[in-house]
């Protein structure tokens, strides 16, 4: 029930009913985007990456936040490598 998948909004198919065509891993699906339009004109949503759950887009995926999360993990990886190197050299 928690299953949500990312997809990219390609076009608005029915602006009255807030429906859009979303590309989900190559497959195109009609999705209700009422929850993510916000104050914007509906056409501005084209190109958004969204999290889709049972036919509804529930969140716009924040690219900057995603990049930041990955950057933190890269930093953590570098810190771990440093630590491992220090341990190896102190054993020598």
């Amino acid at each position: 029930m928690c299953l949500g998948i990312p997809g990219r909004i390609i076009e608005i198919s029915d602006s009255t009913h807030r429906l859009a065509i979303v590309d989900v891993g190559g497959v195109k699906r009609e999705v209700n985007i009422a929850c993510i339009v916000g104050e914007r004109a509906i056409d501005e949503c084209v190109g958004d990456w969204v999290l889709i759950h049972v036919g509804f887009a529930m969140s716009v995926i924040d690219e900057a936040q995603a990049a930041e999360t990955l950057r933190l993990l890269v930093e953590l990886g570098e810190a771990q490598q440093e630590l491992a190197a220090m341990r190896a050299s102190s054993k020598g």
Partner: protein
Amino acid sequence: MQYIDEFRDPDKASSLVAAINDIVKRLAVGRDRPFHIMEVCGGHTHAIFRYGIANMVPPEIEFVHGPGCPVCVLPMGRVDDCVAIAETPGVIFTTFGDAMRVPGSRKSLLQAKADGADIRVVYSPLDALEVARKNPDLEVVFFGLGFETTMPSTALTVLQAEAEGISNFSLFCNHITIPATMRAILDQPDLQLDGFLGPGHVSMVIGTRVYDFIATDYKRPLVVSGFEPLDVLHSVWRVIKQIAEGRAEIENQYGRVVPRDGNPAALAAITKVFEDREFFEWRGLGSIERSGVRMRKSYARFDAERKFATPSLKVADPQNCQCGEVLKGILKPRQCRVFGKDCTPQTPLGALMVSSEGACAAYYQYGDLEGLRGPCAADAA
């Protein structure tokens, strides 16, 4: 970026495991039991097994599987109510797929379908509404299952039906809420929990501030987590880091999807259509206050609970079932007396074996962990 593969990078996973090991080895000195981290939602239980994360973390960390699987906590009496509605002449009963095989006291929905009831699996409540449009002479009921993640979709579908003046569509509302459930879990005297992986997609709807009471009242750390392997490992690291630093805070690891204040449009739809129930019955956990919602009186004409007479009985689990203890995290699935014997995915006795997110189904599918546990990253360092 397409937001999946980047969060499955094995190199970053190794770094996270090493970082977790570093903290845990220092912290675990002199402790008589592992750190118990509860992953609340079924999607996380599934991710932990599917990606072998329980095998990657050191044995000083144990995952306690929480009750956040709405199918798993569906009481038998409620399944009986679904079957009663589905077997009413002139009704098309629509539902998400995972509810089909949950045993009722007489039969499951799948068995009722085999016996001739018109029961259809749908992916989205919008599909159920389409069935109603296409069958104006029949009454279409949608089984509204799920936590806050699914509530907006159901609410928006009811609002759509209202806007179109559709009169043959109703919702059998079984939506339950996470915060009340977590409080009930934390109040269990026999549970020793050190921290939480917070639900990712429930939080996308309700935000993260609803969990503040867990830090302030119960002094436990909670990290809202995404569902990819790196998300889960990152969140475990953040929980264990909090414990090491003596902190109890609510953190958001899933910031790319979860906004702090939730989704305003979704919350507005939910508030319009639903109201809190004083209490709701959960399989294994009994009655929990303010843990469910029902439809408001203004939406009575879309409310299957008002339109249909159902048995509405409290039905106890079969005698040899231990779903309750597994749901509360007291027992591991393999400790249940019927796990793998009378209760298998082919012949499930309880809902935990039926649902793809259930702990028992996951244990069965991915194998018994103790036997499979291999060398961990710390051994190689």
